[in-house]
């Protein structure tokens, strides 16, 4: 029984949820990450204006040309301009990252909320989630894509499915902790209905961790898409994606390593930026979480 007088300073003060965008410039590193991400987003949006060539235009005469004034990063094995393909490739990565994050958060939130509150749903749902988590994400995505054909939609679904259990478990654990709180019991005793308790007292607790989680899902989705393309199980090879450019570069790696280097660099910067922003958001949302960072 805790009887002692609680020293006020040791009480974790949870303030009403508020995320100001100021955290994006909290440290120089995060500021750089934010700028990088903004530049990549701008590059994706303005791709038709920025790209010097048509990313799909085949020019067999210009195969594997080194960097020149005409082709700033050279050409690939089909004579396509690498720079243009890289610029267009940002589109796919960002769309997939964002799409997978939104979908998995939405579905995971629903599953997590329901299983956090209904025991019988919980038992079934968590077994399903355990099963999904036991399947390595890449293999699961490969299976989905290889069966339903490679389009941007199937790739997005394939990447979303393995992310759902992580979100659902996160939401569920937040709900399970929160529902033991005396303020939830107080809400029960003043006669609040179940939906009202969920919406008003449980949901808000999940927002902060979900914002953080969504950045991690986004980063992981961009990564998975690139890996799928790299393995040849992603969106069709002629579509410019960073993974596809690198997949084509594999065969010519010893001749022209820049085919892997440049898209790899951009890919890494994009994922790194999203991850760093995620960490910064976590620190800004909950100073206590600064210390504990199991992903």
């Amino acid at each position, binding site marked *: *029984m*805790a*009887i*002692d*007088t*609680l*020293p*006020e*300073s040791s*009480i974790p*003060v*949870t*303030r*009403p*949820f508020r995320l100001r965008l100021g955290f994006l410039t909290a440290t120089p590193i995060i500021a750089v990450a934010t700028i990088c991400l903004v530049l990549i987003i701008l590059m994706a949006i303005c791709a038709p204006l920025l790209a010097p060539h048509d990313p799909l235009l085949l020019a067999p005469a210009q195969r594997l040309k080194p960097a020149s004034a005409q082709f700033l990063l050279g050409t690939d094995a089909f004579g396509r301009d690498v720079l243009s393909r890289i610029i267009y490739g940002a589109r796919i990565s960002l769309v997939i990252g964002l799409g997978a994050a939104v979908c998995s958060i939405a579905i995971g939130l629903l599953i997590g909320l329901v299983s956090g509150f209904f025991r019988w749903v919980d038992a079934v749902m968590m077994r399903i989630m355990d099963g999904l988590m036991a399947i390595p994400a890449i293999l699961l995505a490969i299976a989905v894509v290889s069966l339903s054909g490679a389009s941007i939609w199937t790739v997005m679904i394939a990447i979303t499915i393995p992310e759902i259990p992580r979100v659902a478990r996160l939401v569920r654990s937040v709900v399970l902790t929160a529902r033991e*709180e*005396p*303020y939830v*019991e*107080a*809400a*029960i*005793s*003043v*006669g*609040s*209905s179940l939906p*009202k308790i969920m919406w*008003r*007292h449980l949901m*808000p*607790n999940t927002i902060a961790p979900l914002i953080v989680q969504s950045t991690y899902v986004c980063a992981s989705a961009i990564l998975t898409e690139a890996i799928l393309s790299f393995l040849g199980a992603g969106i069709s090879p002629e579509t410019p994606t960073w993974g596809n450019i690198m997949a084509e570069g594999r065969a010519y790696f010893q001749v022209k390593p820049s085919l892997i280097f440049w898209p790899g660099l951009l890919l890494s910067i994009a994922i790194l930026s999203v991850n760093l922003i995620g960490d910064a958001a976590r620190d800004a949302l909950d100073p206590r979480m600064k210390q504990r960072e199991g992903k």
Partner: protein
Amino acid sequence: MTAANSTNVVLDINNLVVGLGRKADAHRIIDDLSLQVREGETLCLVGESGSGKSVTSLTVMGLLQKGTLVPSGGSVKLVGEELLTASDRRLRQLRATRMAMIFQEPMTALNPVVHVGRQIDEVLRAHTDLDARARQQKILAMMEHVRLPDVERIFASYPHRLSGGQRQRIMIAMALVLEPKLLIADEPTTALDVTTQKQILTLIRDLQRDHGTAVLFITHDMGVVAEIADRVAVMRHGRLVESGPLDDVLRHPKMEYTRNLLSSVPSLVPRTPRPETSEPVVLEANELGKVYRERSMFGKAREVAAAKDVTLTLRKGRTLGIVGESGSGKSTVARCIVRLIDPTSGGVRLAGREISDLSRRLLQPHRKKIQIIFQDPYRSLNPRVTVGESIAEGPINYGMPRKDALARARELLELVHLPPDAISRYPHQFSGGQRQRIAIARALALDPDVLVADEAVSALDVSVQAQVLDLLDEIQKRLGIALLFITHDLRVAAQICDDVAVMQHGRIVEQGPAAEVLTNPQQAYTRALLDAAPGRGWDFANFRPVSEAAE
């Protein structure tokens, strides 16, 4: 109590300043504190939360969190040796050999994955050259010395196998095995039940007498002070308010703050009984029971009866107290009555209507008649919802228009002596006592017949506790509400209850008017509880021992 006639100063703190951070203008957690503890003497350091008493003890031990709390002035001398400037190495040598410390939470103070014997052994291995056999003998002897039973078995046990009292004995054995000059005890009995508390206090006093140890005993509980102190030092906001021999401070406190602190301590002598009433019965519990079943896949299901055959009656405008130690089932009963959990047997009648077997939906109209306030004021309000919305939630649930409900919330805030404009603020802007008032306002918003207070003042400092108790009393007089008051604190029960039910192991062992149960107990257990209540010989609020009150 031994008189402090020896002049050997063991711990000498002079003009100590501890700041938050390294800056010169940093906020001072400890401000110009001077204390002496002599050989064979117990100095009780008393103060409410935030007074800096624990920081003082950690400063002496050199255990302050590096870089966060920084001693920036004054001196701390242990048998003449300056500690503030001592090297980390020297401090490590001094710990356990010259100075030792025991902590508040015996449940968490021991490493859960190491045998307790080995944990004591570490002290000997770090500071002595004894061989394994000699060390073990010394440890077993020490464990017997702190009156642990079956020492060989306990030696090889993990902490989770031991009770709280046993763990605290292990901590004491660990602290005293090398016979340090100074023992610092930081709220060592606060987390224990009163009967265990009494044993531990006796143990510390006896060991001190045998070894002549100087004890710096930190506590917030005046009762404990009266039991164990030779001298008392009162702290507030990091400063020393006053210090002196126990009797002087309790009888003739010089400072206003000390007087107030003492006046706030509820007396163990029950208040003058209110006349019996023939008001209607608002709450009845009939042979209420709650059995927890632990389902296991193999073997039989284990059944734990958290409450059994609990029968209670509460009339309008009266206060019924349920007292008991931890695990006695008193909170289970409260939660069954409010239907936060479902009782497994027996019945609860609310204003004559049986509610224990109603489904959640049918229960809805009855919920508003019985409301509950919880122990922890920091967790009983949703941090993301404004105070007004929290209070108005109940009335809105029962169909009151939002605007009227918020207007009602303002009235209620005034009723609990908070400014009505608190309505648009968030809980983190309020202190613990204020939050408890808000929780009371929320409970009152539905005009309940019965208010259940589950350890509602236990987490509060005594001065705040007294204010909240006064408030509850005032509200009861004004609204004629019935109170079911759950507490472990007999002093609180004596001051607020008309009737008292004493619980042990899920059953009521004795029940009756407070004045009778608490002055003339019939059952052995009730007598033991009363006997163990610390400071029972003192009437703090009147600055005199109870024995003198009769004269």
